[in-house]
C-alpha cells in the first residue's frame, strides 16, 4: 500500500481551536428510517477528512446536511464555530463537488467557475483573477471557453473541483467525486487531488465507499455503518487497530478469527485461545473490557507468513496456526494462499512470494504472525461502543 500523506494529526484534535466544521449529535430521520444516528465529528482547518462506508450508511446524507440540502432532525452543526444547521445552502461557507459534477450545461467552463464569485461582492477584476487561478490550479485554463459537453469526464471533474475551490470555502465537500472515472484516471486524480488540497489549504470532507481511496487521501477517516460512526482515526490506525469488527472487515482485507479471551494479566497485552486450543498473546485491542469473553482476532493477509514447521513454543513474539493449503491464487503482484486451519477458521495469506517448496493444495503449513501485528476487537458491537469512539 503506497500512500501520500501530510504530517498527520492525532485521532483527537487539540482543544481550544476553532474547528472548520463540527457536528454534535447530528441525527437525520426520513419518516421511520434513521439515516444518520447521533454522529459527532470535527474537521480541523486544512484537514483532509473522509467519510467512509458502504452505500446506504448515511455518509451522503451527512454531507448533504453539511451543505445545507437536508436539515438535521436534531443535533448541532458548527461552521467555523458558528451554528449553521438552519442556514440555507447559499448562505453557508461550504461548497459541494457533486458526484455527477452538476456543471451548468449552458455555460462555458469559465462561466461555471465564475458563478460562485459573481454571487459575492467581488470586483470584476477580482472575479476574473480568481477564476483564472482556480482553473490553473486544476490545469483547465486552456479549456476555459469550452462548454461542459465538449469535455471528458475527468475534465468535467476538474471543472467541478475548480468551481468549488474558487469560493475559498471553510470546508469543501466532495461526494464521491472520482466515482465516475475509470480506475487509472481515478488513481491519477487521487494523487492530484491530495496535492491540490495541500496547496490550497482548504478543509476537505470527502465521501467515498472506496476504502483504498480513503486510506490514500485522508488525514483522518470516519468509518460509517448504518448511520453511525464506528471509528474516527488516521488511516494507519484504522488499518492496524480497527475499533470494531465492521471496520476491520470493511477496510482492507482481514482474516477474522473468533477467539476466547483468557485474561488481561499481562496488560496491555491480552491472552486469547485460538479455535485450535492454542493460547496466544495479541498486540493491540479495541473495545475489550474486563468482562469480554468472546472477541475477534484481526489478522491482515499481508502480515501472515507461511512456514513449513511449527513456531518455537518458547518464542512469545509469534503466533501461529497449523493448516492445509486449500488453493494458491496468483494475483499478479502478490500470491494469495487460502488455508483451512485446525479448529475451523479459514485464513488467507498474501505476499510477493512464499519460500516454501511444494506449495500446493493439501500441503500442511504453519501460518504465523508477529504478535504486535495482531489486533483484537470486541465481538459484539453495541451503540455505546460506537459513540465511545466518536467522543
Amino acid at each position: 500500500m503506497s500512500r501520500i500523506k501530510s504530517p498527520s494529526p492525532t485521532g483527537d484534535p487539540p482543544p481550544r481551536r476553532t474547528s472548520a466544521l463540527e457536528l454534535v449529535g447530528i441525527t437525520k430521520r426520513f419518516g421511520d428510517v434513521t439515516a444518520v444516528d447521533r454522529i459527532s465529528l470535527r474537521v480541523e482547518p486544512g484537514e483532509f477528512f473522509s467519510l467512509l462506508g458502504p452505500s446506504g450508511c448515511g455518509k451522503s446524507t451527512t454531507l448533504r446536511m453539511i451543505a445545507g440540502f437536508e436539515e438535521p432532525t436534531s443535533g448541532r452543526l458548527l461552521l467555523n464555530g458558528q451554528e449553521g444547521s438552519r442556514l440555507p445552502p447559499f448562505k453557508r461557507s461550504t461548497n459541494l463537488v457533486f458526484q455527477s459534477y452538476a456543471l451548468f450545461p449552458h455555460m462555458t467552463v469559465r462561466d461555471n467557475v465564475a458563478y460562485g464569485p459573481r454571487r459575492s461582492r467581488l470586483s470584476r477584476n477580482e472575479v476574473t483573477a480568481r477564476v483564472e487561478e482556480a482553473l490553473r490550479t486544476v490545469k483547465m485554463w486552456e479549456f476555459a471557453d469550452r462548454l461542459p459537453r465538449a469535455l471528458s469526464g475527468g475534465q468535467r471533474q476538474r471543472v467541478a473541483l475548480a468551481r468549488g475551490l474558487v469560493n475559498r470555502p471553510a470546508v469543501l465537500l466532495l461526494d464521491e467525486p472520482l466515482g465516475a472515472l475509470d480506475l487509472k484516471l481515478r488513481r491519477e486524480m487521487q494523487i492530484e487531488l491530495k496535492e491540490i488540497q495541500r496547496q490550497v489549504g482548504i478543509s476537505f470532507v470527502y465521501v467515498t465507499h472506496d476504502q483504498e481511496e480513503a486510506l490514500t487521501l485522508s488525514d483522518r477517516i470516519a468509518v460509517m455503518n448504518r448511520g453511525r460512526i464506528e471509528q474516527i482515526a488516521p488511516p494507519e490506525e484504522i488499518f492496524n487497530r480497527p475499533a470494531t469488527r465492521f471496520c476491520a472487515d470493511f477496510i482492507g482485507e482481514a482474516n477474522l478469527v473468533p477467539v476466547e479471551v483468557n485474561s488481561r494479566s499481562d496488560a496491555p497485552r491480552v491472552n486469547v485461545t485460538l479455535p485450535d486450543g492454542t493460547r496466544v498473546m495479541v498486540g493491540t485491542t479495541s473495545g475489550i473490557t474486563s468482562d469480554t469473553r468472546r472477541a475477534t482476532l484481526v489478522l491482515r493477509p499481508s502480515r501472515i507468513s507461511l512456514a513449513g514447521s511449527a513456531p518455537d513454543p518458547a518464542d512469545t513474539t509469534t503466533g501461529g496456526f497449523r493448516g492445509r493449503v486449500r488453493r494458491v491464487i496468483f494475483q499478479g503482484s502478490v500470491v494469495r494462499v487460502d488455508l483451512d486451519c485446525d479448529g475451523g477458521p479459514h485464513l488467507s495469506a498474501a505476499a510477493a512470494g512464499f519460500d516454501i517448496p511444494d506449495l500446493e493444495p493439501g500441503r500442511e503449513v504453519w501460518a504465523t504472525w508477529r504478535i504486535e501485528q495482531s489486533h483484537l476487537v470486541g465481538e459484539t458491537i453495541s451503540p455505546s461502543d460506537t459513540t465511545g469512539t466518536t467522543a
Partner: protein
Amino acid sequence: MVDVGKSLEGLEHQPGDQEEAVLDISYAGRGRRRRWIPYAFISTPVGVLLTFFSGPLVLLAIYSFQRRSRTGDGSFTLANYRAAVQPNILHVAGTTFILASISMVILLVLAYPLAYFIAMKVGRWEVPLLLALALSDELNPLIRIFGWRTILARNGLVNTVLQGIGITHAPLDWLLFTRFSVVLVLTASWMPYAVIPLYAAMKTIDPRVLEASSDLGAGWFTTFRYVIFPLTATGFVATMVIVFIPIVSDFATPGLVGGTSGRMLASVIEDLFTRRGEWGVGSALTFLLLVVSGLVVYLSYRIARVRNLDTSS
C-alpha cells in the same frame, strides 16, 4: 450506383471479395426499391392536411382578392385589404395584441412556478397534477366560458361572496364584459398549454444543477435568471408560440365575456363572415392575422436558434 462502382473497382485488386461485392449490389438495389415507403406512410396525413386545411385557405385567399361579396363580380381588387386596415379595425387589432400580450405575460409568470413545482417538487403528485391539467382542457370551451360568466356576473359567485363577508357593499361591475374578464378567462383557458411545454423543458434539467446554483451562493431569483430560464428557453419559446396564436385568434372568449370593450380581432372576423356577409374583407383580415402570427412564430424560432439554446448537457 456509386457503391457498385466502388465494389467493382475493389474486385480488380482483391478478387477474394467477390461475394461482398455482390451483396453490395443487392443491398443498393433493395434500398432504391424501398425508398418510397416513408412517403407512402406520410401521404395520407399530408393529403388530409392539403384537402381540409390548405384547400379552404386557398379559397380564402381567392375571396380576399375578389369583389364578389359586394357586387357578385370576381375581378381582382385590393379593396378588401384596404377595408381590413380601417382605423376602427386597427383599433381592435391594437386591443387584441395588448390583451393577448397581457394574457401571455400572466400565463408565463404563473406557468413557470407551476411547471417548476410539478417537475421538481411534488413527487408522487406529479402525474395526477399533469392529468388534472390535461382534464381541465378536455372540458368543452363554451361550457368553461359560461362557467366563468356565472362566477363573474353581477349576482355571481364572486360578488355574492364579497358582499356576503362585507368586503364590498355593491356588486363589482368590472368583473364581467370587460378587458379584465377577457384576460382572466384567456389566462385560465390556456394555462395547460403554457404549463406542459415548460414542464417538459424543466424535466430535462438535472436537479443537482439547481442545487449547485444554490450551493454557490445564488438565491431563487438568481437561479431562475441564470440557470432555469436559459435551460428552459426552448420550452419558453414553444409556449409563446403554442399559446400566443390561439389567444390572438380566440373568438369565443371575447365574444362571450368581452362585451364591447373586450372585443378582439377574431370576433370581428367572425362578425364579418357570419353576420355581415363580408367574406372578402373577412378573408383579407384573416390573412393579415395569419401573416403577423407567422412573423411572431418565425421571430421566436430565430431568437431561439441564434442563441443556440441547447438544454442537453
